[in-house]
């Protein structure tokens, strides 16, 4: 024999799969939404996403080099973080902002805690929140999408307009869609679903995000528990309690409006499902998803900010170790 056979401990065979494969599929699932952002906002979208990916990859590469650690770029996780940060940026954002967000995400949130697998907060979300509170104006300057991005007309997001209009609402009105209409921004559900509204680069089309998310769930790259529990509980809370602020009763909330606006789909399908920062067990993930749904609802309904997804997920990230501690599977032959 030319070469000695391997000597290993059992199991002697292994399912095909690797971190790189997991991350590669996540990237593939994000491609449709990325392409759509470029269609809607033109080269600027490509520039912002590329800049955040480059910043994330270079930061991780340099840190590995400087501290003589193993090269971890091949696992593609830094690329995923970069893409998600780009997705969370408004189209006209100054390019240094996503770069700062990526550097913060990789260096502070991921690397300093021990790298992939050891971070307890989703790096992309942490980066996004960091720059959101640092450069609030730039992070909330929105533009209307137009094919090719030819004319960058500014305008608020639907969630932003509704939040503003609600603050000086005097008489009852039939839900957020009517409110948008009265504010001079008539919008259809299809506009929301396809992303013909102002918003962050990657969150535009609920349709494309759902397609990507379903792909990952079918391939068992991500679990179904978190998206289902998150979207389900969020929809339930909105339906039950959101109608009241428009003068309606209980169970009169506009669920579709809230599902297809803002970062809900991006968050529920691609950020909350980050396996590193979500619970290990099925029960734990359902609780995690329910918590995300509850806090997103609370922030959107009662908070000053129109959006709630990032903060809700980060808040639940903090609770993951607690959830894991109590939500263990029932052990065989052990009576608790």
């Amino acid at each position, binding site marked *: *024999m*030319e*070469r*000695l*056979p*391997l*000597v*290993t*401990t*059992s*199991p*002697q*065979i*292994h*399912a*095909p*799969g*690797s*971190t790189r*494969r*997991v991350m590669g599929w996540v990237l593939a699932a994000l491609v449709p939404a990325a392409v759509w952002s470029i269609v809607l906002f033109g080269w600027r979208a490509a520039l912002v996403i590329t800049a955040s990916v480059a910043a994330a990859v270079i930061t991780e590469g340099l840190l590995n080099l400087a501290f003589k650690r193993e090269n971890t770029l091949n*696992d593609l996780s830094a690329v995923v973080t970069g893409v998600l940060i780009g997705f969370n940026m408004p189209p006209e954002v100054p390019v240094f902002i996503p770069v700062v967000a990526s550097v913060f995400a990789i260096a502070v949130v991921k690397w300093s805690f021990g*790298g*992939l*697998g*050891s971070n307890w907060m989703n790096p992309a979300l942490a980066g996004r929140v960091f720059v959101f509170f640092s450069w609030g104006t730039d992070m909330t300057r929105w533009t209307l999408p137009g094919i090719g991005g030819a004319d960058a007309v500014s305008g608020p997001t639907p969630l932003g307009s509704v939040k503003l209009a609600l603050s000086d609402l005097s008489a009852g009105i039939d839900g957020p869609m009517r409110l948008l209409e009265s504010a001079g921004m008539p919008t259809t559900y299809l506009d929301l679903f396809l992303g013909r509204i102002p918003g962050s680069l990657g969150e535009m089309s609920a349709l494309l995000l759902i397609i990507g998310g379903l792909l990952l769930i079918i391939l068992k790259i991500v*679990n179904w528990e978190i998206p289902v529990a998150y979207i389900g509980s969020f929809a339930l809370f909105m339906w039950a309690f959101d109608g009241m602020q428009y003068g309606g009763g209980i169970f009169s909330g506009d669920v579709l409006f809230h599902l297809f606006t803002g970062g809900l789909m991006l968050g529920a399908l691609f950020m909350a499902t980050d*396996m*590193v*920062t*979500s*619970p*290990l*067990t*099925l029960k734990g*993930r359902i609780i995690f998803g329910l918590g995300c749904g509850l806090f997103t609802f609370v922030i959107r309904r009662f908070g000053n900010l129109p959006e709630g997804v990032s903060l809700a997920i980060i808040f639940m990230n903090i609770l993951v170790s607690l959830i*894991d501690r109590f939500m*263990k*599977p*029932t*052990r*065989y*032959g*052990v*009576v608790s």
Partner: protein
Amino acid sequence: MNKFKTFTRGGIHPPEGKGSTSNKPIRNAPLPAVAVVPFSQHIGAPAKPLVEPGDHVEEGQLIGEPAGFVSASVHSPIPGTVKEIKNLYLPSGIKTTAAVIELDGEFSRLGKPILTRDWSVMAKDEILDILKQHGVVGQGGATFPSHVKFSVPKGRTCEVFLVNAAECEPYLSADHRVMLEHTEDIVEGIRIIKKLLDPERIVIGVEVNKPDAIEKLKAAGAADGIEVMPLKVKYPQGAEKNLIEAILDREVPSGKLPIEVGVINANVGTLVSVCEAVRDDKPVIERVVTIAGGAIAQPGNIRARVGSSIQDLIEECGGLAEEPEKFVSGGPLMGFTFIDLDSPVTKGTSGILALTKKEVQSFAATACLSCGRCVKACPMGLVPTTIFKNIEHERLDDATAFGLDDCVLCGACAYVCPSHIPLISAFKAARGRKRRLAAMNKG
């Protein structure tokens, strides 16, 4: 809702890989010119050698006697002369002495008519003594001496005798072939065990990927009230504790034996040995071994004498078609790799696999992503990644609290891990360390 029973927690579905062997009849391997017979082919104390270099031995002669309560007899598989007593390592990593026997002289059993005896007149102790004298051990993998296993402890009763015919390890089909070709022997073996244990129920658990075996066993066992239970295909269905859960919906309490829930179980191959020992007065000197894997030219099931070299069996199957990445003794999920092809077949060798690079999928470990796939795969309801992290941080007490000792080492967690973390390797090492620490503290 699946109509077939299975265990509730976890489990995996690796490619079955049985198709290349399960439809071919068992062939007899040529008799070995030299047999290397280890004195430790079972769990427990190694047998005490009764022969010295230069001694002539008969086929089936006792050459090692049990050296303790949990120990087993060892017999010469061929007639011949003992050349030497040497030390060697078995694929399982166990170091043992072995008798090297060179073939010569007459076969006393081979080709001679079998004289069957009427065991129904024998007392229980007499039957147990026969099992002990004939070196019968469990052939499903654990190789626990049968005369100990089938002695019901005082104050206990065996309510259910479970026959483990799940054969859930990929590639292996030796049990499947034995069920088809030795159906009557299995049923006779069950009748003998029934006399020993006096159980209320006898159930054979078979995975549904062996429909022909299910039919044959049903037909053969009906008159004796033997139930045949088809089980869903899921690994590790044949792990003792999981099989008990699958069939009886009972859980063996942590750290206890199946008799705690009124169950004793045995593998089908063991039952054939029981039958042959008791009815035919034949010691365990041969067994059926699956020779398979992508690198084997003509995979098949072979009846080989104990002590035959693995190299000879591979030759018998057409040799190697390509360079294997690994040689494995046993199944691919719980088996052991080995390099020395001169290693002997023992009573516990269920399969010899030569696996290709593509089948093995061996990669360097990367960081844990906390994806939870190991948790989902674990048939014991453990959180393998947490146990692993505690071991890594030298917290053996915490690892134990999280169920280190309940792990059945089935390998499902490590099989699915996308980061290729050597979970089982760590668990085995940690248990070894615990044993050594306990021994040190004691003495």
